[in-house]
Every structure is written in structure tokens, then in C-alpha cells.
């Protein structure tokens, strides 16, 4: 266990610091690696609610993103990452524990049988399209163009008539608003 934790630490620490310099590709790679570890961590702890694992992976990823300034570079990255995962897991148990106990659906069984591998990204129960419609237009457009249509900041700025700085700000604010909505499932 401690040896594998060390491996994860070595892999992630450097990647993360590099990503924080502002390298988007690096950041995407770091998040991808992190999501694999989160999935493994949560799969192990949520065997009775496998359908919630991917939701929680995403929620934790978003938390890691939004609270990334709380990571201190001299600290073990894995300690920080798992502390957040643990917080989100416990928060989830607190919010859903009672409901899950009463809820015994036959679908739960089929989902146990079809549970995906640890490193394979899966769908959560959240509908991004629906959540986006709840955002102010400026933020929604900024996110739709940059992410969903894969345009650059410059292209989005030209298309929407917003300045490049405004596009960045709107993507940022939109993500923040999405995070707030995160708890309310569509």
C-alpha cells in the first residue's frame, strides 16, 4: 500500500505542479489520472451504491479544481487529494445514507454486474445540457463555444462579441455556478 501510494505521489506531484503553471493539456492529463484514482477509491467504499460512484468522482474532480489553491506544494499531493475525496465521500454518505437505506431497487443489482473498470470514464446521472440552460447566457455561451464546440478563446470572443478576458471570466464563473448546481440533480 505505502509503496503504491509513493508511486502515485511521484506520478502526480510533478504533473500537478506543471499543470498549475497554466498548461491546459497537462492539467487535463493530471485530472484524468486523478479521476482514475478517485474512481478506485470510491468504488472500494461505495459497493452498495455503484451508480453514485461516477457522480461522486465528478463532484470530487470539481472540488479539486475549485479548491486547488489550498494545495501547498511542499505537501504530499496524495494526502491533499485523498483528504478531499474522503470529505466528499463522507458528505455524500451524510446526504444520501438514509435515502439509500430505504431504497432497494432491482436496478441496483444490474448496475453492480455492469460496473465499469477503475480507469474508464463513465457517465454521471447529471445532464450537462440541462445544467447549462440554467446559467446566464454569457456564461452558457462561453462554455458551450469553448468546450462543447472546441473553439479557442479568441474564436469564442469573436463569435460572441465578448472580449477575450470576458470569455475567460465567463467560463470561470459559469463553472463556479455549475458547481453550485451540482448538488441538485436534474
Amino acid at each position, binding site marked *: 500500500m505505502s509503496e503504491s501510494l509513493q508511486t502515485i505521489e511521484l506520478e502526480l506531484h510533478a504533473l500537478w505542479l506543471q*499543470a*498549475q*503553471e*497554466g*498548461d*491546459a*493539456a*497537462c*492539467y*487535463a492529463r493530471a*485530472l*484524468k489520472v486523478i*479521476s482514475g484514482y478517485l474512481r478506485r477509491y470510491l468504488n472500494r467504499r461505495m459497493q452498495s451504491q455503484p451508480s453514485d460512484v*461516477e457522480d461522486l*468522482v*465528478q463532484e470530487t*474532480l*470539481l*472540488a479539486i*479544481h*475549485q*479548491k*486547488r*489553491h*489550498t*494545495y*501547498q506544494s511542499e*505537501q*504530499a499531493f496524495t*494526502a*491533499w*487529494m*485523498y*483528504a*478531499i475525496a*474522503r*470529505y466528499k465521500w463522507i*458528505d455524500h454518505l451524510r446526504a444520501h445514507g438514509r435515502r439509500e437505506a430505504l431504497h432497494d431497487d432491482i436496478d441496483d443489482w444490474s448496475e453492480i454486474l455492469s460496473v465499469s473498470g477503475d480507469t474508464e*470514464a*463513465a*457517465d*454521471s446521472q*447529471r*445532464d*450537462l445540457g440541462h445544467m447549462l440552460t440554467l446559467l446566464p447566457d454569457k456564461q452558457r455561451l462561453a*462554455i458551450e463555444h*469553448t*468546450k462543447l464546440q472546441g473553439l479557442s478563446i479568441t474564436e469564442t470572443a469573436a463569435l460572441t462579441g465578448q472580449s477575450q478576458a470576458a470569455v475567460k471570466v465567463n*467560463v*470561470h464563473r459559469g*463553472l463556479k455556478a455549475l458547481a453550485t448546481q451540482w448538488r441538485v440533480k436534474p
Partner: protein
Amino acid sequence: MNTDELIALLAHDAGPARGPKPQQVAGRLAVALAVCGVMVLYMGLNPKLSEFASTSVFSLKMVWLFAMVVFSAALVYRMVHPGRQMGNAPWAIGLALLAMGGQGMSQLLQAPVAQRSALALGTSWQVCTLNIAFIALPVLAALMWTLRDMAPTRPALTGAMAGLCAGALAAMLYSLHCTENSFTFYALWYSGGMGLSALVGAVLGARFLRW
């Protein structure tokens, strides 16, 4: 939504992580402390403050309160950074409280029985605890505002420690008003004020520091 989609979305927002700006935090605290100052002025300064301030009882109390501020602030700082251990701060806080408690107890036991109630209750025991907790509110609000941007993995406990810190700061300011001069009084009612503030902080933390 697929997790890979989310990752691509987040990667667009890559860049150096920005936390609350130190100037901003300092600004909020300064405003809060100014409000506290006005509250204390409204209650009225101790008319014999300059005399009283040079006594060893006063300086010892201030050192004690300052230590409480530092220890609880250190603990809060650690608690809002996920994965950090609490370290020695809880022990330091406990020891500081115990030290004043012991001092107050020994003062009480050494005094003649007839004077004991005066030592313990002074003239302001009914208002001291509430006053301190009240003065602590602006500081607590400023702290909570900042802590919301951090990542406390124990929201209620973090709120409580922020309340303790605000309470200790408030008690230092309240000392400019307070005329009590027994350790027994401080151990009981000043600790009570900080404790009450911590309780308020715990309630607020459980409510507002979740993320």
C-alpha cells in the same frame, strides 16, 4: 455527463490557482476590528485604563489571550488545507486554557472564603461572557467569509476554532473596557466568552463552511 467531458471542461479553466488575496483578507479583518473597536468605545473605556494596563495581571491576561489568538489561528490555517495534520495546536490551546484555569483556581483557593465570590464574580460576571461573544461577531463574520473560499474538511470544528480565534481577539479588545482584575474571573468568564463564540462558530461552520 461523461467524466472525460468534465475534465476537458475544467482544463479550459487551467492556470495558476488563486486563493483569497492576502490584502483582501487583511482588509476584511481590519474593517471587522474597527467595528469591534467602535463597540468597545460604545461600552466605554476603563477610566483607569492607563494605570490598570501597567499591572502584571493585565499583561498576563493579554499574553494569555494573544496566545489563544495565535494557537487557534494556526489551527484554523491547518484545518482549511486538506491533508494537513492539526499538529500541536489543539494541545497548545488546551494548555493555555488549563494554565489560566489553574491560575484562577489557585487564586480562589488561597483567598479567604469571604472574598471568594468577589474574585469569581467581580462586578460584571453577568455581562462579560455575552459582551465578548458579541464583540467577536464581526471578526467571526470576516473569518467565515474568507474560510468559505478555503477547503475545511471538518466544517463545524473549523467554524468553532474560527469562533475561538474571534473570541480571543474580541476579549483583547474588551479588556480595554473591563475593570476586573482576578484570574479566577478571567478563567471563568473570559473563557466562557471565547467558548460561546466558538459555539456560534460551530453552528455557522456546519451551515456555511460546507463545500
